[in-house]
């Protein structure tokens, strides 16, 4: 079974802080993804990576960056957290379809 693990289920941070969300997968998948889920908006792609050190912007990359130093780990970075980044963040990985998701990190920015 594919296992995608997100380091925190719940996180509370303050505006202006630099925030790191970590994701690890155990299936040697090339492709990894970060989404945010907001009510009425579905899942929106922030960034994705198709190989180590490679990254591509998704649909809403502003205010975020990513890091993929090892194949199994994909990190999402909020450079200077703002209240509009309060959301559910979901990581996914795949080799072929479908994508497999972690359980999400509910992030609150105060």
């Amino acid at each position, binding site marked *: 079974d594919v296992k995608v693990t997100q380091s925190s*289920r719940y996180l509370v941070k303050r505006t202006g802080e630099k925030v790191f969300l970590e994701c690890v997968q155990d299936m040697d998948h090339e492709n990894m993804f970060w989404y945010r889920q907001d009510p009425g908006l*579905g899942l929106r792609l922030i960034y994705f990576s198709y190989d180590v050190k490679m990254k591509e912007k998704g649909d809403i990359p502003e205010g975020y960056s990513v890091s993929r130093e090892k194949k199994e780990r994909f990190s999402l970075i909020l450079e200077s957290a703002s209240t509009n980044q309060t959301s559910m963040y979901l990581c996914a990985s795949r080799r072929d*379809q479908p994508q497999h*998701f972690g*359980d999400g990190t509910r992030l609150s920015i105060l």
Partner: protein
Amino acid sequence: DQQVKQNSPSLSVQEGRISILNCDYTNSMFDYFLWYKKYPAEGPTFLISISSIKDKNEDGRFTVFLNKSAKHLSLHIVPSQPGDSAVYFCAVSLLGGGTSYGKLTFGQGTILTVHP
């Protein structure tokens, strides 16, 4: 501009009856279509998929129908069970090459409630 739309935010169905969830997309280039189910406090789990060369795919109680000319996708659940109560997301993809390979675009989701 939303490329994938699920126009019904919610659907309520009696146990044992059919649930039909709908999804519309705008780009005729999409060639792979998926449905995910999501329970609260969990990540989405893959349910069923269909490629553009087919118009129907069935897996147990779940059937996905694809109408390419109408750019419309639907998920049928028969019979519906209370454990099916969840948020359902449709997603579309391009299986072609390039760095966008396999990128998914999701609809807004439909909350399904199945009453005993």
